[in-house]
């Protein structure tokens, strides 16, 4: 793991494994719905997928404008903050990416995020707090991490994960509600649950599937964060910069006033998670773990 290329490869592989697992969970949930509801579930599946798609892909496509509006970020030009702008421009050369929009969020908590459906529509934003509390080297590490999200197309990856988790949640919710309302009539109408053991197994699967999907979605998010750290090092070849930046974030207790769940995953330091401990629903790996991996890269490189 001491080498950023190996770290990038490992995190990419893990992302694919997890997205594959999410696919399996989806298949199980759909199968369980079919067992449980019989033929009437056939209509529910496209509805659940449709709702999830409409909800997630709208926000994915317009993510640049949407997130800017939700966080109150202000897009800047070179003369507003020459150093920050130069720093981002430098990194686009290392990454071979077009210049993204650069934005500032008025907030005392040090944090930053990247969004946008593709590199051509990317926005990377910094809070005014992070600009005050970090030097050029640390800011470069943060900017490289955000640009890494753009290069790795994490908005797209997370949109896929969110759609899958959403579809499963909606499906499970619909099936369980319909069952609750219609009660015992189910067996008489559809005859879908001939075998009581299968029906109970399907019920358990339907209750557990949304939780499993959510866990996997969080796991994908954590892997993308680790990948972005490794890719950031590939851009700057300076693990110390990002490591020092994360140490600044770790020592700072202020949290962005952004409590909206829907944009939590975009920040470099999660505004929702407790940063010292990890749990299965965290969108970010614990800062201490990220710092330790970067330290290993410093020694290896």
């Amino acid at each position, binding site marked *: 793991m001491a080498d950023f290329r190996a770290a990038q490869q490992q995190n990419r592989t893990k992302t694919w494994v997890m997205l594959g697992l999410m696919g399996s969970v989806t298949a199980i949930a759909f199968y369980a719905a079919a067992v449980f509801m019989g033929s009437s579930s056939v209509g529910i599946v496209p509805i659940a997928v449709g709702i999830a798609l409409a909800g997630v892909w709208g926000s994915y496509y317009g993510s640049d404008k949407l997130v800017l509006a939700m966080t109150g970020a202000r897009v800047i030009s070179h003369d507003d903050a*020459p*150093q920050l702008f*130069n720093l981002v*421009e*430098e990194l686009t*050369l*290392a990454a*071979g990416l077009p210049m993204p929009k650069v934005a500032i969020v008025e907030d005392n908590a040090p944090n930053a995020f990247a969004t946008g459906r593709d590199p051509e529509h990317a926005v990377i934003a910094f809070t005014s707090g992070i600009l005050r509390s970090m030097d050029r080297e640390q800011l470069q590490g943060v900017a490289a991490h955000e640009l890494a999200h753009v290069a790795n197309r994490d908005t797209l990856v997370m949109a896929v994960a969110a759609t899958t988790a959403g579809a499963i949640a909606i499906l499970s919710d619909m099936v369980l509600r319909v069952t609750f309302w219609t009660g015992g009539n189910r067996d008489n109408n559809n005859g879908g649950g001939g075998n009581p053991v299968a029906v109970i197994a399907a019920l358990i699967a339907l209750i557990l599937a949304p939780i499993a999907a959510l866990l996997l979605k969080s796991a994908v998010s954590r892997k993308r964060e680790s990948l972005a750290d490794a890719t950031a090092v590939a*851009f700057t070849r300076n693990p110390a910069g990002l490591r020092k930046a994360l140490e600044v974030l770790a020592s700072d207790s202020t949290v962005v006033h952004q409590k909206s769940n829907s944009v939590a995953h975009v920040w470099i330091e999660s505004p929702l998670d407790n940063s010292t401990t990890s749990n299965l629903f965290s969108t970010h790996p614990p800062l201490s773990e990220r710092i330790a991996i970067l330290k290993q890269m410093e020694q290896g490189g």
Partner: protein
Amino acid sequence: MNTSTWIVLGVVVLAVLFIVGQYNSLVRLNVGVDEAFAQIEVQLQRRSDLVPNLVETVKGYAAHESATFEKVVAARAKATAAQGVEAVAEADGSMTQALRGLLAVSEAYPDLKASENFRALQEELSSTENKIGFARQYYNDNVRSLNAKIVAIPGRFFAGMAKVVARPFYEVTDPGKRDVPAVSFS
């Protein structure tokens, strides 16, 4: 048509797709190297454009340091004329060294260092230096991918067909880094 005809047809289609894929990825890597080199040249040009302004600003405070100015001007002329990776890299190294000399001279003039104009120029210059550095890194990464693809199987079988050859790395020969200064204890 019988089954074996379909199988043969399938194999032929797959083989064609494979060859096209290999060919295209070689061409894409090759174009990537060209683009990365063009990016280095853009950044070098930007640095050259900063030079007259920088020299004028320093002259305002340190007019008699003419030897340093001449070096910078000569390096700029050399950079403008350079063609090809090796020549450009060499001119790049001379320019970096000449500018380092200019900045070292400016250290001795507190009024110059305090001037707003000079400080803005210095941020632009150091940012441009960083950009050149990252553009070099990106170029060398691309060369590395291309050169690895050309020698590895199956890429090496298609390199000739795609008329793609190994490309030179961009190596700046920085005399300042190589020469150990002679130390005298007498």
